[in-house]
């Protein structure tokens, strides 16, 4: 590993893919185990949680829907930070992080939409309802798909890194605008009969399982993200190793 990198301190050591791989190898089993434990506790607490007097047992869907929605936004924020890492600091792992995070974030976003829909049917009577939150998450989902399509369309990681980073950043700047416009649109077109999802008025017996599930799924995200980053680093190494092998196959006779 290059000495110039490790001179600048432990923070930069993360920039070294080899270091990252060994770091990941050490921490992943623990992270995975912790994820399983927290999720198990959360699920148990969710099962134990009382029924909401308005929504009945379907409030249990909230325990997975809200963490999914929260994670979909957190993942995009991580991708935005990674985008800044690529463009501003030229961090070598930033693009790997972004590429690995996108499909995971897309899955969580899709799950947020699906669980939201399944929650909406008993609550609002229709499978899909164009309320401000679901619509914003839907637009976010479309943005995820666009980013994934773009990264897969370009072969050369070096070029796709910057393009994806710029798109992610523009998307991130757009998110408040989109949220604002969807809120506007929603208040115009729907009478105010939107269910309050509680927020700070939510009761402790419902809030605690929700928080535990949120933490559990966040840990799950980081576990999966690290695993996916590891895969991506290895994938790139394989590509460059194959190139080296192809070059050497020309030069020397194989023995």
């Amino acid at each position, binding site marked *: *590993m*290059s000495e110039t990198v490790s001179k600048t301190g432990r923070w930069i050591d993360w920039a070294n893919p*080899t270091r990252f*791989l*060994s770091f990941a190898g050490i921490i992943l089993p623990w992270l995975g185990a912790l994820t399983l434990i927290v999720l198990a506790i959360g699920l148990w607490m969710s099962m134990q949680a009382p*029924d909401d007097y308005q929504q*009945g*047992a*379907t409030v*249990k*869907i909230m325990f*997975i*829907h809200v963490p*999914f929605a929260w994670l979909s936004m957190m993942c995009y924020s991580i991708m935005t930070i990674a985008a800044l890492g690529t463009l501003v600091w030229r961090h070598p792992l930033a693009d790997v992080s972004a590429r690995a995070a996108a*499909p*995971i974030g897309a*899955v969580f976003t*899709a*799950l947020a939409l*699906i*669980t939201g829909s*399944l*929650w909406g*049917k*008993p609550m609002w009577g229709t499978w899909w309802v164009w309320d401000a939150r679901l619509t914003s998450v839907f637009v976010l989902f479309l943005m995820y798909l666009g980013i994934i399509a773009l990264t897969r369309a370009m072969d050369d990681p070096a070029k796709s890194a910057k393009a994806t980073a710029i798109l992610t950043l523009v998307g991130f700047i757009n998110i408040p605008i989109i949220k604002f416009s969807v809120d506007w649109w929603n208040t115009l077109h729907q009478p105010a009969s939107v269910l309050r999802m509680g927020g700070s008025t939510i009761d402790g017996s419902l809030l605690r399982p929700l928080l535990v599930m949120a933490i559990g799924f966040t840990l*799950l995200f980081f576990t*999966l993200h690290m*695993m*996916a980053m*590891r*895969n991506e680093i*290895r*994938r790139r*190494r*394989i590509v*460059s*190793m*194959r190139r*080296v*092998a192809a070059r*050497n196959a020309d030069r020397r006779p194989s023995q």
Partner: protein
Amino acid sequence: MSNHAGFIIAAYGVSLIALAVLICWILIDQRLQNRALQELESRGVRRRSDSKGAQS
């Protein structure tokens, strides 16, 4: 509210399946990459920086 149990089960079920698929995809990808790496290394292919002694 018992008729809503179907929705709850469906919500949890879909989430479980989707997450399981995601985890499996990552695990399978991991196995593929490891196998390809092992195959390349057994053929004697080295990374350029490996000459300096860094091995993952």
